[in-house]
């Protein structure tokens, strides 16, 4: 198959979208593609599509490309690839991909190999695990995508955050915020599914009333469709 594979291998990862840093306030770092380390972001730096940007407290960064200007506020994280306008159709594709990414529904397979190496006892959870607020910063970043007119993109970013940082799914106010975007965009089935999930969380009275009202509104819309 592959005389030409080496070619795509070399060229396929070149980014099509990049932003120039127009202004940086205080602590703003970025992480390139598959790198592990975070680097301080400077004014004039060009950040590629595969990078992630992270701001600290009382920090922000202004980015610009050919036709987009985006400001990321404090305590936020965003993938540069998310800073883009998407069509509703693209959002639906992205939502559909969530299920397609999952392994097919087959029984868990055990290996033919029954050898045991070592003397481990039981399935332990490493004590190195610690609470992580990066997921919250990701949600803050997603929210700012919406505030900058990139609502479809913000929903995709939020959904990925829920998957990678499951604790963030418990943050009702954020969940409602992104569910409201689905509702506003007329994606009623998707919004309804999300509101049902949210209703299982611990909600304040105000949040509960809001979710219940949205559920009823969608039911009415779907019945009259």
């Amino acid at each position, binding site marked *: 198959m592959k005389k030409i594979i080496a070619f795509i*291998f070399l060229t396929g990862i070149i980014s099509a979208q990049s932003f120039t840093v127009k202004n940086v306030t205080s602590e703003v770092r970025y992480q390139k593609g598959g790198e592990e380390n975070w680097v301080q972001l400077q004014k004039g730096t060009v950040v590629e*599509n595969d990078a992630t940007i992270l701001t600290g407290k009382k920090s922000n960064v202004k980015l610009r490309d050919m036709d987009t200007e985006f400001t990321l506020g404090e305590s936020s994280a965003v993938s540069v690839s998310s800073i883009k306008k998407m069509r509703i159709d693209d959002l639906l594709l992205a939502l559909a991909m969530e299920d397609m990414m999952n392994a097919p529904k087959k029984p868990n397979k055990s290996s033919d190999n029954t050898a045991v190496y070592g003397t481990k006892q039981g399935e332990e959870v*490493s004590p190195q695990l610690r609470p992580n607020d990066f997921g919250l910063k990701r949600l803050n970043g997603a929210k700012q995508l919406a505030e900058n007119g990139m609502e479809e993109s913000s929903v995709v970013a939020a959904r990925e955050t829920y998957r990678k940082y499951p604790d963030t799914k418990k943050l009702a106010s954020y969940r409602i915020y992104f569910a409201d975007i689905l509702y506003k965009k007329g994606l009623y089935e998707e919004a309804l599914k999300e509101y049902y999930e949210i209703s299982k969380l611990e909600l304040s009275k105000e949040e509960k009333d809001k979710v219940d009202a949205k559920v009823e509104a969608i039911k009415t819309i779907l019945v009259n469709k």
Partner: protein
Amino acid sequence: MEFIEVKIDKDIYPTLTENYLDYPFAYGTIVNLTDKYINVKPLARIEGINEESIQSPASSIAPNDSAEVPFYIIIPEKYHSDKTALSYSYFYLVTENEQPDDQFQKAILVNSSNSWDGRVSDLYYLIKKDLNFSTMNAKKVFNEYKTILDTLPAALENFYKAKLLFNRFIKNLVYTSDPRATGEYVQFPHETFELKGGDCDDLSVFYSLLLESVGIQTALVDYKSDEMIRHVNLLFDTDLSPEQAELITKNDSKYFIRESLKGKNEIWVPVETTSLTDFETAWKIGPEKFNKEAVNDFGIATGKVQIIDVY
């Protein structure tokens, strides 16, 4: 009973054994020339592959009616051929007597054992065939690193085993293009090991086998970004939960969450087997390609990128 026509549906790729149990390789159009219902047993044999005829499911044909019947074949596990050659397939219709009512002969292309139909899902058959070879080699490596493996947290076992196997076997291979100008050619993992190299599907099949043989689930990723350009690399299951991601990386773009049958979300890692460097580099390049083509360009949704689980 008589044959009207037999159509060969597919050439024979001997390595794709079970494929021929599930899908007919030929269809015969037959006619019942009598005025009563007849039960007919279709049989087929390919010269050089089968010593005896293989019976396909029997069919009942109405009086003076015609029907299409499928012919299945069995490729013996031990069958091997280095060359692609034209052979003959023989088809028989048996009713009441031992002797067939009618028979038909047709030429058929029997590919070499290294030939492949280009469907990434069918690479599974190559992975399956070399399981013992791989288990043996993987065990040798784990015995060498027994002290390290013994002291690792259990949660990290899959990840470090995958890393060890990559750095021992895949890192030292050389990328080489298919040796044949036409058709798809794929090496068995033991051949990739002996030849010390292969192309992207050879390397991905070899690494997948190494991981599967020690109980680590893998999926081949088929990139079909363009009609003329295709590529295959690999995802493997670390068995880590999303909350455990920090044990292996500080970069959340280097892994993906996939839900298992039991609803358990697990961290899967994309690896570029043609990176020809160490695991860390392969794990850096793999996610970059996956992020761009599978996720950001919606490759998974549009079918341009396909994840094929290896079981």
